[in-house]
């Protein structure tokens, strides 16, 4: 079973939480996360369950005007 992380398939971890997924993906800090186009606050990753085919967006600071 897979989820989409930044548009690419990624294996869904057994525990099925967003926290577990992020530990597996290990994105460089700092980052922020959206699940299925909804913002997920950092303190709630452990409580957030991820399902197959969910879309996870992990974003980082970048330049902007």
């Amino acid at each position, binding site marked *: 079973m897979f989820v989409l992380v*930044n*548009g690419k398939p990624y294996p869904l971890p057994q525990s099925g939480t967003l926290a577990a997924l992020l530990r597996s993906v290990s*994105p*460089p*800090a*700092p*980052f*922020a*996360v*959206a699940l299925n*186009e*909804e*913002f997920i*606050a*950092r303190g709630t990753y452990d409580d957030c369950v991820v399902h197959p085919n969910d879309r996870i*967006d*992990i*974003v*980082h*600071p*970048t*330049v*902007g*005007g």
Partner: protein
Amino acid sequence: MERQAIQDELILYGRRFTSRLLLGTARYDSPSVLADAIAVADPALLTVSLRHQMSGAKESGASFWNLLRETKRPLLPNTAGCLSAHEAVKTGCMARELFQTNLVKLEVIADEVSLQPDPFGLVEAAMELVKLGFHVLPYCTEDWVLCRRLMDAGCEVLMPWAAPIGTGQGPRNPRALRELRQRAPQVPLIVDAGIGLPSHACQVMEWGFDGVLVNTAVSRSLDPIRMARAFANSVNAGRSAFLAGPMIEQQVAAPSTPQISRPFASDLSTLPGLRVSEPRMGTLVP
């Protein structure tokens, strides 16, 4: 001098800034050029954004984050690239967590050619973001009704465009911009987008705008560091001119040098070729 500077601070949502220049961080050739441009421009705020990680990109991720931290400048995250209110609200929430600020430069784009702001999406997103406790600085057009709706939604600062993003055309609709300034005298107005030259920045500051945001005009110039300094100087010059109160434009010439007790005084009307009462073709009539 110091007292005067304190009195003329830019105040955005209760935060005080001595500079009236906001600087974008995009499209610089290298992080070091960006860092030097920031140092000489001394901007009030730096605009930043969010993106998926791009492997090897110098302008995102940890290296950019470290650069931002080293500058110690306040940050203004944007919602660039958002095409709906929902996207903008989501992006604003992610930006708040990432950059640890309630400030957000709200962008909702409606037209991919002109990158013109979406007035309907802006108002919808602004209402939601204000409810969520954001301090919203919407990038908008100079349209008065839109600006009023944004103020009604709780925006205490507006960022009207001068011209489409990245064009460098300067103020395309000076009359509407000046009318906006007159109709919202108490609202901080930062001119954003389309500024190409320091003279453009100086011009809008002379009109009484509270600040200017520039990015491409600096980053894509041949010498961004020199241009950053030029913009900082022009913003200061325009602000000083506004505070000084420009003279009223006159329709006829008026001698600046006193006419009383002129040396070698003569009656102008008696000079050869200078006739007051009987003008002729080819003669100068003062």
